[in-house]
Protein backbone atom coordinates (compact mmCIF):
# COMPACT_ATOMS: atom_id res chain seq x y z
CA UNK A 1 0.00 0.00 0.00
CA UNK A 2 2.69 2.42 1.06
CA UNK A 3 4.89 1.64 -1.89
CA UNK A 4 1.94 2.19 -4.17
CA UNK A 5 1.44 5.57 -2.62
CA UNK A 6 5.04 6.40 -3.22
CA UNK A 7 4.81 5.40 -6.82
CA UNK A 8 1.92 7.81 -7.07
CA UNK A 9 3.84 10.65 -5.55
CA UNK A 10 6.74 9.82 -7.77
CA UNK A 11 4.42 9.93 -10.73
CA UNK A 12 2.99 13.27 -9.66
CA UNK A 13 6.44 14.75 -9.25
CA UNK A 14 7.54 13.27 -12.56
CA UNK A 15 4.54 14.80 -14.31
CA UNK A 16 5.34 18.19 -12.83
CA UNK A 17 8.96 17.87 -13.89
CA UNK A 18 8.02 16.97 -17.41
CA UNK A 19 5.64 19.88 -17.56
CA UNK A 20 8.33 22.12 -16.13
CA UNK A 21 10.95 21.19 -18.67
CA UNK A 22 8.46 21.21 -21.52
CA UNK A 23 7.19 24.59 -20.43
CA UNK A 24 10.55 26.27 -20.12
CA UNK A 25 12.15 24.82 -23.20
CA UNK A 26 9.13 25.90 -25.20
CA UNK A 27 9.35 29.42 -23.88
CA UNK A 28 13.03 29.82 -24.52
CA UNK A 29 12.53 29.06 -28.17
CA UNK A 30 10.32 32.05 -28.82
CA UNK A 31 11.40 34.36 -26.01
CA UNK A 32 15.02 35.01 -26.77
CA UNK A 33 16.73 37.24 -29.22
CA UNK A 34 20.09 35.68 -28.47
CA UNK A 35 21.76 38.75 -26.88
CA UNK A 36 23.47 39.33 -23.56
CA UNK A 37 20.97 41.79 -22.10
CA UNK A 38 17.75 40.62 -20.47
CA UNK A 39 14.55 42.63 -20.44
CA UNK A 40 11.55 41.39 -18.46
CA UNK A 41 8.11 42.42 -19.64
CA UNK A 42 5.17 41.88 -17.25
CA UNK A 43 1.76 42.54 -18.83
CA UNK A 44 -1.76 42.68 -17.38
CA UNK A 45 -2.46 39.30 -18.96
CA UNK A 46 -1.48 37.39 -22.07
CA UNK A 47 -4.96 36.10 -22.73
CA UNK A 48 -6.53 38.77 -24.93
CA UNK A 49 -5.75 39.95 -28.47
CA UNK A 50 -4.73 43.42 -27.29
CA UNK A 51 -2.01 42.00 -25.04
CA UNK A 52 -0.90 39.57 -27.72
CA UNK A 53 -0.14 42.63 -29.89
CA UNK A 54 1.92 44.13 -27.06
CA UNK A 55 3.79 40.84 -26.66
CA UNK A 56 4.43 40.64 -30.40
CA UNK A 57 5.85 44.18 -30.41
CA UNK A 58 8.12 43.50 -27.42
CA UNK A 59 9.49 40.33 -28.98
CA UNK A 60 10.03 42.00 -32.35
CA UNK A 61 12.09 44.73 -30.67
CA UNK A 62 14.09 42.07 -28.84
CA UNK A 63 14.87 40.28 -32.08
CA UNK A 64 15.88 43.47 -33.85
CA UNK A 65 18.24 44.67 -31.10
CA UNK A 66 19.54 41.27 -30.03
CA UNK A 67 18.06 41.40 -26.50
CA UNK A 68 16.59 38.50 -24.54
CA UNK A 69 12.98 39.48 -23.96
CA UNK A 70 10.91 37.61 -21.46
CA UNK A 71 7.17 38.36 -21.67
CA UNK A 72 4.94 37.09 -18.86
CA UNK A 73 1.47 37.87 -17.51
CA UNK A 74 -1.31 36.30 -15.40
CA UNK A 75 -4.35 34.47 -16.78
CA UNK A 76 -6.60 37.49 -16.39
CA UNK A 77 -6.36 41.22 -15.74
CA UNK A 78 -8.16 40.62 -12.44
CA UNK A 79 -5.26 38.48 -11.13
CA UNK A 80 -3.70 41.51 -9.52
CA UNK A 81 -1.62 39.82 -6.83
CA UNK A 82 -0.38 37.22 -9.28
CA UNK A 83 0.97 40.09 -11.37
CA UNK A 84 2.76 41.52 -8.31
CA UNK A 85 4.26 38.07 -7.63
CA UNK A 86 5.37 37.83 -11.25
CA UNK A 87 7.11 41.21 -11.01
CA UNK A 88 8.94 40.05 -7.86
CA UNK A 89 9.91 36.76 -9.48
CA UNK A 90 11.21 38.54 -12.57
CA UNK A 91 13.20 40.98 -10.42
CA UNK A 92 14.78 38.15 -8.46
CA UNK A 93 16.36 37.07 -11.76
CA UNK A 94 18.11 40.47 -11.98
CA UNK A 95 17.00 41.58 -15.45
CA UNK A 96 18.73 44.57 -17.08
CA UNK A 97 15.41 46.41 -17.08
CA UNK A 98 11.73 45.70 -16.45
CA UNK A 99 8.76 46.83 -18.54
CA UNK A 100 5.38 46.70 -16.77
CA UNK A 101 1.76 47.28 -17.74
CA UNK A 102 0.12 47.47 -14.30
CA UNK A 103 -3.42 46.09 -13.82
CA UNK A 104 -3.94 48.17 -10.68
CA UNK A 105 -1.27 50.87 -10.80
CA UNK A 106 -1.15 51.35 -7.00
CA UNK A 107 -0.41 47.70 -6.29
CA UNK A 108 2.84 47.52 -8.26
CA UNK A 109 4.34 50.69 -6.79
CA UNK A 110 6.04 49.10 -3.73
CA UNK A 111 7.83 46.36 -5.69
CA UNK A 112 8.79 48.68 -8.55
CA UNK A 113 10.19 51.22 -6.08
CA UNK A 114 12.41 48.42 -4.81
CA UNK A 115 13.51 47.71 -8.37
CA UNK A 116 14.49 51.34 -8.82
CA UNK A 117 16.43 51.20 -5.53
CA UNK A 118 18.41 48.23 -6.80
CA UNK A 119 19.20 50.16 -10.02
CA UNK A 120 16.91 48.27 -12.39
CA UNK A 121 15.30 50.73 -14.84
CA UNK A 122 11.49 50.53 -14.73
CA UNK A 123 9.42 51.42 -17.81
CA UNK A 124 5.63 51.53 -17.73
CA UNK A 125 3.49 50.87 -20.76
CA UNK A 126 -0.24 51.21 -21.46
CA UNK A 127 -1.16 52.35 -17.92
CA UNK A 128 0.89 54.74 -15.83
CA UNK A 129 1.71 54.24 -12.16
CA UNK A 130 2.75 56.89 -9.70
CA UNK A 131 6.06 56.23 -7.93
CA UNK A 132 9.52 57.70 -7.66
CA UNK A 133 12.30 56.93 -10.11
CA UNK A 134 10.51 55.33 -13.07
CA UNK A 135 12.26 55.76 -16.40
CA UNK A 136 9.28 56.55 -18.60
CA UNK A 137 5.65 55.93 -19.42
CA UNK A 138 4.81 54.79 -22.93
CA UNK A 139 1.17 54.93 -23.89
CA UNK A 140 -1.58 56.51 -25.92
CA UNK A 141 -2.17 60.25 -25.64
CA UNK A 142 -5.81 59.72 -24.82
CA UNK A 143 -6.83 63.35 -25.16
CA UNK A 144 -5.35 63.51 -28.66
CA UNK A 145 -6.98 60.19 -29.55
CA UNK A 146 -10.34 61.63 -28.49
CA UNK A 147 -9.73 64.83 -30.45
CA UNK A 148 -8.92 62.87 -33.60
CA UNK A 149 -12.07 60.81 -33.06
CA UNK A 150 -14.14 63.96 -32.69
CA UNK A 151 -12.65 65.50 -35.82
CA UNK A 152 -13.23 62.31 -37.80
CA UNK A 153 -16.86 62.16 -36.71
CA UNK A 154 -17.40 65.85 -37.47
CA UNK A 155 -15.95 65.38 -40.95
CA UNK A 156 -18.71 62.83 -41.68
CA UNK A 157 -21.55 65.09 -40.48
CA UNK A 158 -23.07 68.52 -41.13
CA UNK A 159 -22.76 71.51 -38.79
CA UNK A 160 -25.41 71.45 -36.06
CA UNK A 161 -25.96 67.67 -36.18
CA UNK A 162 -26.79 65.94 -32.90
CA UNK A 163 -24.08 63.71 -31.47
CA UNK A 164 -23.72 61.41 -28.45
CA UNK A 165 -20.68 60.58 -26.30
CA UNK A 166 -20.42 57.18 -24.63
CA UNK A 167 -18.02 57.14 -21.71
CA UNK A 168 -16.15 54.33 -20.00
CA UNK A 169 -16.43 53.72 -16.25
CA UNK A 170 -16.38 57.14 -14.60
CA UNK A 171 -13.01 57.80 -13.03
CA UNK A 172 -11.08 55.70 -15.54
CA UNK A 173 -8.49 58.30 -16.60
CA UNK A 174 -7.89 56.80 -20.06
CA UNK A 175 -11.50 56.79 -21.24
CA UNK A 176 -12.31 60.10 -19.49
CA UNK A 177 -9.51 61.86 -21.38
CA UNK A 178 -10.70 60.47 -24.71
CA UNK A 179 -14.19 61.79 -24.11
CA UNK A 180 -12.83 65.22 -23.14
CA UNK A 181 -10.81 65.39 -26.34
CA UNK A 182 -13.71 64.30 -28.51
CA UNK A 183 -16.14 66.70 -26.85
CA UNK A 184 -13.80 69.62 -27.47
CA UNK A 185 -13.27 68.74 -31.13
CA UNK A 186 -16.99 68.15 -31.76
CA UNK A 187 -18.04 71.44 -30.16
CA UNK A 188 -15.36 73.30 -32.10
CA UNK A 189 -16.77 71.82 -35.31
CA UNK A 190 -20.24 73.07 -34.35
CA UNK A 191 -21.89 69.78 -33.38
CA UNK A 192 -24.56 69.62 -30.71
CA UNK A 193 -23.74 67.11 -27.94
CA UNK A 194 -27.19 65.93 -26.79
CA UNK A 195 -26.10 63.20 -24.41
CA UNK A 196 -22.98 62.01 -22.58
CA UNK A 197 -23.35 58.79 -20.61
CA UNK A 198 -21.12 56.10 -19.11
CA UNK A 199 -21.39 52.46 -20.21
CA UNK A 200 -18.37 51.13 -18.27
CA UNK A 201 -16.52 49.91 -21.38
CA UNK A 202 -19.10 47.14 -21.64
CA UNK A 203 -20.77 46.17 -24.91
CA UNK A 204 -24.13 45.14 -23.48
CA UNK A 205 -24.35 48.19 -21.24
CA UNK A 206 -23.56 50.45 -24.19
CA UNK A 207 -26.39 48.86 -26.14
CA UNK A 208 -28.99 49.69 -23.49
CA UNK A 209 -27.53 53.15 -22.92
CA UNK A 210 -27.85 53.82 -26.67
CA UNK A 211 -31.39 52.42 -26.79
CA UNK A 212 -32.42 54.84 -24.05
CA UNK A 213 -30.78 57.79 -25.78
CA UNK A 214 -32.53 56.94 -29.07
CA UNK A 215 -35.89 56.85 -27.28
CA UNK A 216 -35.51 60.57 -26.63
CA UNK A 217 -33.45 61.61 -29.66
CA UNK A 218 -34.29 59.70 -32.81
CA UNK A 219 -32.43 62.27 -34.89
CA UNK A 220 -28.96 61.56 -33.46
CA UNK A 221 -26.48 61.53 -36.33
CA UNK A 222 -23.21 60.54 -34.70
CA UNK A 223 -21.69 58.68 -31.76
CA UNK A 224 -18.20 58.77 -30.31
CA UNK A 225 -17.41 55.95 -27.91
CA UNK A 226 -14.40 55.72 -25.58
CA UNK A 227 -13.74 52.14 -26.67
CA UNK A 228 -14.59 49.77 -29.49
CA UNK A 229 -16.70 47.35 -27.49
CA UNK A 230 -19.11 50.11 -26.49
CA UNK A 231 -19.14 51.39 -30.07
CA UNK A 232 -20.19 47.92 -31.23
CA UNK A 233 -22.89 47.80 -28.54
CA UNK A 234 -24.23 51.18 -29.64
CA UNK A 235 -24.14 49.95 -33.23
CA UNK A 236 -26.53 47.12 -32.35
CA UNK A 237 -29.01 49.52 -30.80
CA UNK A 238 -28.84 51.73 -33.90
CA UNK A 239 -29.24 48.79 -36.30
CA UNK A 240 -32.26 47.51 -34.39
CA UNK A 241 -33.97 50.83 -35.17
CA UNK A 242 -32.68 50.92 -38.75
CA UNK A 243 -31.20 54.36 -38.28
CA UNK A 244 -28.25 55.87 -40.12
CA UNK A 245 -25.85 56.95 -37.39
CA UNK A 246 -22.08 57.32 -37.80
CA UNK A 247 -20.31 55.58 -34.93
CA UNK A 248 -16.63 56.03 -34.08
CA UNK A 249 -14.89 53.79 -31.55
CA UNK A 250 -11.45 53.79 -29.94
CA UNK A 251 -8.88 50.93 -29.64
CA UNK A 252 -8.72 49.37 -33.10
CA UNK A 253 -9.63 45.80 -32.15
CA UNK A 254 -10.00 43.17 -34.84
CA UNK A 255 -13.76 43.01 -34.29
CA UNK A 256 -14.10 46.76 -34.76
CA UNK A 257 -11.96 46.77 -37.91
CA UNK A 258 -14.02 43.92 -39.36
CA UNK A 259 -17.19 45.85 -38.55
CA UNK A 260 -15.80 48.88 -40.44
CA UNK A 261 -15.19 46.65 -43.48
CA UNK A 262 -18.75 45.30 -43.25
CA UNK A 263 -20.19 48.81 -43.18
CA UNK A 264 -20.99 48.79 -39.46
CA UNK A 265 -18.80 51.23 -37.55
CA UNK A 266 -17.76 54.39 -39.40
CA UNK A 267 -14.25 54.31 -37.98
CA UNK A 268 -12.03 53.76 -34.98
CA UNK A 269 -9.08 55.53 -33.44
CA UNK A 270 -6.65 52.67 -33.05
CA UNK A 271 -4.20 52.58 -30.17
CA UNK A 272 -0.90 50.91 -30.93
CA UNK A 273 -0.37 48.08 -28.47
CA UNK A 274 2.29 46.70 -30.81
CA UNK A 275 4.19 50.00 -30.55
CA UNK A 276 3.87 50.00 -26.76
CA UNK A 277 5.61 46.64 -26.58
CA UNK A 278 8.16 47.56 -29.22
CA UNK A 279 9.04 50.97 -27.78
CA UNK A 280 8.99 49.56 -24.27
CA UNK A 281 11.80 47.12 -25.02
CA UNK A 282 13.67 49.56 -27.26
CA UNK A 283 13.76 52.23 -24.57
CA UNK A 284 14.52 49.68 -21.87
CA UNK A 285 17.67 48.89 -23.82
CA UNK A 286 18.50 52.61 -24.04
CA UNK A 287 18.08 52.90 -20.27
CA UNK A 288 20.32 49.88 -19.68
CA UNK A 289 23.04 51.51 -21.77
CA UNK A 290 22.70 54.68 -19.73
CA UNK A 291 21.25 56.75 -22.59
CA UNK A 292 18.64 59.38 -21.92
CA UNK A 293 14.99 58.33 -22.25
CA UNK A 294 12.12 60.86 -22.46
CA UNK A 295 9.86 60.57 -19.41
CA UNK A 296 6.69 60.41 -21.54
CA UNK A 297 6.56 58.66 -24.88
CA UNK A 298 3.52 58.67 -27.13
CA UNK A 299 2.89 55.25 -28.62
CA UNK A 300 0.89 56.87 -31.41
CA UNK A 301 -2.58 56.37 -32.87
CA UNK A 302 -3.97 55.27 -36.21
CA UNK A 303 -7.16 56.61 -37.72
CA UNK A 304 -8.98 53.64 -39.26
CA UNK A 305 -11.80 54.09 -41.75
CA UNK A 306 -13.10 52.02 -44.62
CA UNK A 307 -10.15 53.24 -46.76
CA UNK A 308 -7.43 51.59 -44.71
CA UNK A 309 -9.33 48.97 -42.70
CA UNK A 310 -8.27 46.10 -44.97
CA UNK A 311 -4.60 46.92 -44.46
CA UNK A 312 -5.03 47.23 -40.69
CA UNK A 313 -6.82 43.91 -40.47
CA UNK A 314 -3.97 42.18 -42.28
CA UNK A 315 -1.44 43.79 -39.93
CA UNK A 316 -3.41 42.69 -36.86
CA UNK A 317 -3.62 39.14 -38.19
CA UNK A 318 0.08 39.07 -38.98
CA UNK A 319 1.28 40.21 -35.55
CA UNK A 320 -1.13 38.04 -33.60
CA UNK A 321 0.33 34.90 -35.17
Amino acid at each position, binding site marked *: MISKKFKL*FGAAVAVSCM*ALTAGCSGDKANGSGGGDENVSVVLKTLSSPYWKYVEAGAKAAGKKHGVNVNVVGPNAE*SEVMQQVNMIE*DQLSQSPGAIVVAPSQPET*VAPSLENAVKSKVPVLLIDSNADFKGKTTFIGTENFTAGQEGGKLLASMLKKGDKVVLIQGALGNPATDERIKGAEEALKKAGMEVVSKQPADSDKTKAMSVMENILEKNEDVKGVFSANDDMALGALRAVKAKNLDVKIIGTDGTEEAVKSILDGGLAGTIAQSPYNMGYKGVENALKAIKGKKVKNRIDSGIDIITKDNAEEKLEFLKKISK
Partner: protein
Amino acid sequence: MSEIVVQKENGTVKKNLTIKNILSKFAPLIGLVLLVVVLTVLSDRFLTVNNVMNIARQSSINSLLAIGMLLPILTAGIDLSVGSVLAISVMLMGVTTVNMGSNPFIGILVCLGVGSGFGWFNGILLTKLRLPHPFISTLGTMNIARGIALIITAAAPIAGFPYMIQFMGREFVGPIPVSFILVIAVYVIFHIFLTRTQTGRYIYAIGGNPEAARLSGINVDRVLIIVYTISGLMAGLAGLVMVGRVNSAFPLAGLSYELDAIAAVIIGGASFLGGVGTVWGTLIGALIIAVLRNGLNLLNVSADFQMTIIGAVIIAAVYVDVLRQRKNKKK
Protein backbone atom coordinates in the same frame (compact mmCIF):
# COMPACT_ATOMS: atom_id res chain seq x y z
CA MET B 1 -12.99 5.93 11.96
CA SER B 2 -13.59 9.27 13.57
CA GLU B 3 -12.50 7.86 16.91
CA ILE B 4 -9.19 6.79 15.50
CA VAL B 5 -8.69 10.22 14.09
CA VAL B 6 -9.64 12.05 17.23
CA GLN B 7 -7.23 9.94 19.19
CA LYS B 8 -4.47 10.51 16.71
CA GLU B 9 -4.94 14.24 16.87
CA ASN B 10 -4.86 14.16 20.63
CA GLY B 11 -1.56 12.44 20.36
CA THR B 12 -2.71 9.60 22.60
CA VAL B 13 -1.87 6.78 20.23
CA LYS B 14 1.80 7.50 19.87
CA LYS B 15 2.63 3.82 19.61
CA ASN B 16 0.73 3.73 16.32
CA LEU B 17 3.49 5.81 14.77
CA THR B 18 5.07 3.02 12.82
CA ILE B 19 7.21 3.78 9.80
CA LYS B 20 4.19 3.29 7.58
CA ASN B 21 2.17 5.81 9.53
CA ILE B 22 4.97 8.30 9.61
CA LEU B 23 5.41 8.01 5.88
CA SER B 24 1.72 8.43 5.26
CA LYS B 25 1.58 11.38 7.63
CA PHE B 26 4.53 13.08 6.02
CA ALA B 27 3.54 12.44 2.41
CA PRO B 28 2.84 16.16 1.72
CA LEU B 29 6.16 17.14 3.29
CA ILE B 30 7.99 14.61 1.15
CA GLY B 31 6.21 16.07 -1.88
CA LEU B 32 7.36 19.57 -0.91
CA VAL B 33 10.97 18.46 -0.41
CA LEU B 34 11.02 16.67 -3.77
CA LEU B 35 9.60 19.75 -5.43
CA VAL B 36 12.29 21.94 -3.90
CA VAL B 37 15.01 19.52 -5.02
CA VAL B 38 13.69 19.42 -8.58
CA LEU B 39 13.38 23.20 -8.83
CA THR B 40 16.84 23.71 -7.37
CA VAL B 41 18.24 21.52 -10.10
CA LEU B 42 16.26 23.27 -12.84
CA SER B 43 16.92 26.89 -11.82
CA ASP B 44 20.04 28.34 -10.23
CA ARG B 45 17.94 31.27 -9.02
CA PHE B 46 15.57 29.15 -7.00
CA LEU B 47 17.48 28.35 -3.82
CA THR B 48 18.77 31.84 -3.07
CA VAL B 49 18.03 33.69 0.17
CA ASN B 50 16.27 36.41 -1.77
CA ASN B 51 14.00 33.97 -3.59
CA VAL B 52 13.21 31.83 -0.55
CA MET B 53 12.11 35.01 1.24
CA ASN B 54 10.03 35.89 -1.83
CA ILE B 55 8.26 32.55 -1.46
CA ALA B 56 7.74 33.14 2.26
CA ARG B 57 6.12 36.48 1.47
CA GLN B 58 4.08 35.27 -1.46
CA SER B 59 2.75 32.29 0.47
CA SER B 60 1.67 34.28 3.53
CA ILE B 61 -1.71 35.51 2.27
CA ASN B 62 -2.80 32.07 1.13
CA SER B 63 -1.36 30.47 4.29
CA LEU B 64 -3.58 32.68 6.46
CA LEU B 65 -6.67 32.01 4.35
CA ALA B 66 -5.90 28.29 4.29
CA ILE B 67 -5.57 27.92 8.07
CA GLY B 68 -8.93 29.66 8.40
CA MET B 69 -10.35 27.33 5.73
CA LEU B 70 -9.04 24.26 7.56
CA LEU B 71 -11.64 24.68 10.32
CA PRO B 72 -14.79 24.54 8.14
CA ILE B 73 -13.26 21.66 6.16
CA LEU B 74 -12.57 19.77 9.40
CA THR B 75 -16.27 20.02 10.16
CA ALA B 76 -17.03 18.66 6.67
CA GLY B 77 -18.03 22.15 5.59
CA ILE B 78 -16.45 24.82 3.38
CA ASP B 79 -16.08 28.59 3.27
CA LEU B 80 -16.30 29.97 -0.26
CA SER B 81 -16.56 33.56 0.92
CA VAL B 82 -13.00 34.16 2.19
CA GLY B 83 -11.73 35.94 -0.94
CA SER B 84 -14.68 38.33 -1.00
CA VAL B 85 -14.58 38.83 2.76
CA LEU B 86 -10.92 39.76 2.39
CA ALA B 87 -11.95 42.39 -0.17
CA ILE B 88 -14.72 43.97 1.91
CA SER B 89 -12.47 43.99 5.00
CA VAL B 90 -9.66 45.88 3.26
CA MET B 91 -12.03 48.27 1.48
CA LEU B 92 -13.68 49.27 4.76
CA MET B 93 -10.25 49.60 6.37
CA GLY B 94 -9.32 51.89 3.49
CA VAL B 95 -12.45 53.99 3.93
CA THR B 96 -11.84 54.46 7.67
CA THR B 97 -8.09 55.12 7.59
CA VAL B 98 -7.43 56.72 4.20
CA ASN B 99 -10.70 58.44 3.33
CA MET B 100 -11.77 59.36 6.87
CA GLY B 101 -8.29 59.62 8.32
CA SER B 102 -8.95 57.52 11.42
CA ASN B 103 -6.24 56.06 13.63
CA PRO B 104 -4.53 53.07 11.96
CA PHE B 105 -5.32 50.86 14.96
CA ILE B 106 -9.02 51.53 14.44
CA GLY B 107 -8.48 50.61 10.79
CA ILE B 108 -6.91 47.29 11.76
CA LEU B 109 -9.80 46.62 14.16
CA VAL B 110 -12.28 47.43 11.39
CA CYS B 111 -10.48 45.06 9.01
CA LEU B 112 -10.42 42.14 11.46
CA GLY B 113 -13.89 43.01 12.78
CA VAL B 114 -15.53 43.08 9.36
CA GLY B 115 -13.88 39.76 8.49
CA SER B 116 -15.07 38.13 11.70
CA GLY B 117 -18.50 39.68 11.28
CA PHE B 118 -19.02 38.16 7.86
CA GLY B 119 -17.68 34.85 9.18
CA TRP B 120 -20.15 34.98 12.04
CA PHE B 121 -22.91 35.74 9.53
CA ASN B 122 -21.92 32.57 7.64
CA GLY B 123 -22.20 30.62 10.89
CA ILE B 124 -25.64 32.06 11.62
CA LEU B 125 -26.89 31.27 8.12
CA LEU B 126 -25.78 27.69 8.58
CA THR B 127 -26.94 27.05 12.13
CA LYS B 128 -29.90 29.36 12.74
CA LEU B 129 -31.39 29.69 9.27
CA ARG B 130 -30.52 26.03 8.71
CA LEU B 131 -29.40 26.48 5.11
CA PRO B 132 -28.68 22.93 3.94
CA HIS B 133 -24.94 23.19 3.31
CA PRO B 134 -22.24 25.82 3.92
CA PHE B 135 -21.48 25.64 0.20
CA ILE B 136 -24.74 27.53 -0.33
CA SER B 137 -24.59 29.98 2.58
CA THR B 138 -20.99 30.96 1.91
CA LEU B 139 -21.64 31.18 -1.82
CA GLY B 140 -24.32 33.75 -1.00
CA THR B 141 -22.01 35.63 1.35
CA MET B 142 -19.28 35.52 -1.28
CA ASN B 143 -21.47 37.47 -3.68
CA ILE B 144 -22.85 39.84 -1.07
CA ALA B 145 -19.40 40.76 0.25
CA ARG B 146 -17.92 41.24 -3.22
CA GLY B 147 -20.90 43.30 -4.28
CA ILE B 148 -20.61 45.64 -1.30
CA ALA B 149 -16.84 45.90 -1.79
CA LEU B 150 -17.49 47.12 -5.33
CA ILE B 151 -20.28 49.49 -4.29
CA ILE B 152 -18.39 51.24 -1.46
CA THR B 153 -16.10 53.28 -3.70
CA ALA B 154 -17.80 52.67 -7.06
CA ALA B 155 -15.06 50.12 -7.82
CA ALA B 156 -12.21 52.60 -7.32
CA PRO B 157 -9.10 51.39 -5.45
CA ILE B 158 -7.88 53.05 -2.25
CA ALA B 159 -4.15 53.72 -1.92
CA GLY B 160 -1.77 55.34 0.55
CA PHE B 161 -2.24 53.49 3.84
CA PRO B 162 -0.50 54.57 7.08
CA TYR B 163 2.77 52.80 7.90
CA MET B 164 1.26 50.97 10.92
CA ILE B 165 -1.14 49.17 8.61
CA GLN B 166 1.51 48.39 6.02
CA PHE B 167 3.92 47.08 8.65
CA MET B 168 2.92 43.41 8.59
CA GLY B 169 2.84 42.99 4.85
CA ARG B 170 5.84 45.10 4.04
CA GLU B 171 8.56 44.93 6.67
CA PHE B 172 11.37 42.48 7.32
CA VAL B 173 13.17 41.31 10.43
CA GLY B 174 16.64 40.77 9.04
CA PRO B 175 15.94 38.90 5.81
CA ILE B 176 12.68 37.37 7.11
CA PRO B 177 9.37 38.98 6.13
CA VAL B 178 7.19 39.97 9.09
CA SER B 179 4.24 38.41 7.27
CA PHE B 180 5.90 34.99 7.43
CA ILE B 181 6.67 35.38 11.16
CA LEU B 182 2.99 36.22 11.59
CA VAL B 183 2.04 33.07 9.67
CA ILE B 184 4.20 30.88 11.91
CA ALA B 185 2.76 32.50 15.05
CA VAL B 186 -0.80 32.02 13.80
CA TYR B 187 -0.12 28.38 12.92
CA VAL B 188 1.33 27.67 16.37
CA ILE B 189 -1.78 29.19 17.95
CA PHE B 190 -4.03 27.11 15.70
CA HIS B 191 -2.07 23.98 16.52
CA ILE B 192 -2.57 24.57 20.24
CA PHE B 193 -6.21 25.50 19.70
CA LEU B 194 -7.02 22.38 17.69
CA THR B 195 -5.08 19.85 19.77
CA ARG B 196 -5.12 21.23 23.31
CA THR B 197 -8.52 22.88 23.77
CA GLN B 198 -11.95 21.40 24.17
CA THR B 199 -13.42 23.44 21.29
CA GLY B 200 -10.58 22.23 19.08
CA ARG B 201 -11.36 18.62 19.85
CA TYR B 202 -15.07 19.24 19.29
CA ILE B 203 -14.25 20.55 15.80
CA TYR B 204 -12.66 17.22 14.88
CA ALA B 205 -15.50 15.34 16.53
CA ILE B 206 -18.18 17.22 14.59
CA GLY B 207 -16.39 16.52 11.33
CA GLY B 208 -16.07 12.84 12.17
CA ASN B 209 -19.71 12.36 13.03
CA PRO B 210 -22.00 15.34 13.68
CA GLU B 211 -24.88 13.26 15.06
CA ALA B 212 -22.67 11.45 17.52
CA ALA B 213 -21.15 14.76 18.52
CA ARG B 214 -24.60 16.23 19.13
CA LEU B 215 -25.73 13.20 21.12
CA SER B 216 -22.65 13.34 23.28
CA GLY B 217 -23.70 16.79 24.40
CA ILE B 218 -21.52 19.00 22.21
CA ASN B 219 -23.19 22.31 21.33
CA VAL B 220 -22.65 21.79 17.61
CA ASP B 221 -24.18 25.10 16.54
CA ARG B 222 -21.96 27.08 18.86
CA VAL B 223 -18.85 25.30 17.60
CA LEU B 224 -19.83 25.85 13.96
CA ILE B 225 -20.41 29.57 14.53
CA ILE B 226 -16.95 29.78 16.12
CA VAL B 227 -15.47 27.89 13.15
CA TYR B 228 -16.88 30.24 10.51
CA THR B 229 -16.14 33.36 12.56
CA ILE B 230 -12.48 32.33 12.81
CA SER B 231 -12.38 31.66 9.07
CA GLY B 232 -13.68 35.19 8.46
CA LEU B 233 -11.18 36.61 10.96
CA MET B 234 -8.35 34.96 9.03
CA ALA B 235 -9.69 36.47 5.79
CA GLY B 236 -9.46 39.90 7.45
CA LEU B 237 -5.92 39.19 8.67
CA ALA B 238 -4.86 37.99 5.21
CA GLY B 239 -6.30 41.23 3.84
CA LEU B 240 -4.22 43.25 6.27
CA VAL B 241 -1.08 41.50 5.03
CA MET B 242 -2.11 42.05 1.43
CA VAL B 243 -2.66 45.77 1.91
CA GLY B 244 0.82 45.98 3.39
CA ARG B 245 2.35 44.27 0.40
CA VAL B 246 0.78 46.47 -2.24
CA ASN B 247 -0.07 49.60 -0.25
CA SER B 248 -3.59 49.61 -1.63
CA ALA B 249 -7.02 48.10 -1.26
CA PHE B 250 -9.09 47.29 -4.32
CA PRO B 251 -12.53 45.71 -4.63
CA LEU B 252 -11.35 42.81 -6.78
CA ALA B 253 -8.77 41.86 -4.13
CA GLY B 254 -8.80 38.18 -3.25
CA LEU B 255 -10.79 37.19 -6.33
CA SER B 256 -10.95 33.36 -6.40
CA TYR B 257 -8.53 33.10 -3.45
CA GLU B 258 -10.91 30.66 -1.77
CA LEU B 259 -9.87 28.12 -4.37
CA ASP B 260 -6.15 28.35 -3.56
CA ALA B 261 -6.98 28.15 0.15
CA ILE B 262 -9.09 25.03 -0.36
CA ALA B 263 -6.35 23.54 -2.54
CA ALA B 264 -3.75 24.16 0.18
CA VAL B 265 -5.88 22.44 2.82
CA ILE B 266 -6.57 19.45 0.59
CA ILE B 267 -2.99 19.09 -0.67
CA GLY B 268 -2.00 19.23 2.99
CA GLY B 269 -3.88 15.99 3.59
CA ALA B 270 -7.23 17.15 4.98
CA SER B 271 -10.33 15.24 3.95
CA PHE B 272 -13.42 16.82 2.45
CA LEU B 273 -15.42 14.34 4.49
CA GLY B 274 -14.36 16.14 7.66
CA GLY B 275 -12.52 15.11 10.80
CA VAL B 276 -9.12 14.67 9.15
CA GLY B 277 -6.46 17.31 8.62
CA THR B 278 -3.69 19.06 10.46
CA VAL B 279 -2.36 22.57 10.88
CA TRP B 280 1.13 21.69 9.66
CA GLY B 281 -0.20 19.74 6.68
CA THR B 282 -2.09 22.87 5.68
CA LEU B 283 1.07 24.99 5.92
CA ILE B 284 2.87 22.50 3.71
CA GLY B 285 -0.04 22.58 1.27
CA ALA B 286 0.15 26.38 1.07
CA LEU B 287 3.93 26.22 0.64
CA ILE B 288 3.64 23.62 -2.14
CA ILE B 289 1.36 25.95 -4.09
CA ALA B 290 3.61 28.98 -3.51
CA VAL B 291 6.78 27.05 -4.38
CA LEU B 292 5.17 25.68 -7.55
CA ARG B 293 4.01 29.13 -8.69
CA ASN B 294 7.32 30.77 -7.88
CA GLY B 295 9.40 28.00 -9.44
CA LEU B 296 7.28 28.00 -12.58
CA ASN B 297 7.63 31.78 -12.80
CA LEU B 298 11.42 31.50 -12.50
CA LEU B 299 11.40 28.93 -15.28
CA ASN B 300 9.21 31.24 -17.36
CA VAL B 301 6.41 28.72 -17.63
CA SER B 302 3.30 30.52 -18.85
CA ALA B 303 0.44 31.20 -16.46
CA ASP B 304 -1.80 28.83 -18.41
CA PHE B 305 0.65 25.98 -17.94
CA GLN B 306 0.88 26.78 -14.23
CA MET B 307 -2.87 26.34 -13.81
CA THR B 308 -2.69 22.96 -15.50
CA ILE B 309 0.13 21.77 -13.26
CA ILE B 310 -1.49 22.96 -10.03
CA GLY B 311 -4.69 21.21 -11.08
CA ALA B 312 -2.76 17.97 -11.57
CA VAL B 313 -1.12 18.32 -8.15
CA ILE B 314 -4.51 18.76 -6.45
CA ILE B 315 -5.86 15.63 -8.09
CA ALA B 316 -2.75 13.63 -7.21
CA ALA B 317 -2.87 14.79 -3.59
CA VAL B 318 -6.53 13.94 -3.18
CA TYR B 319 -6.00 10.54 -4.77
CA VAL B 320 -3.40 9.81 -2.12
CA ASP B 321 -6.00 10.81 0.44
CA VAL B 322 -8.50 8.42 -1.11
CA LEU B 323 -5.99 5.58 -0.93
CA ARG B 324 -5.30 6.41 2.71
CA GLN B 325 -9.01 6.27 3.51
CA ARG B 326 -9.41 2.94 1.79
CA LYS B 327 -6.55 1.59 3.82
CA ASN B 328 -8.11 2.87 7.03
CA LYS B 329 -11.40 1.21 6.22
CA LYS B 330 -9.75 -2.13 5.61
CA LYS B 331 -8.28 -2.09 9.12
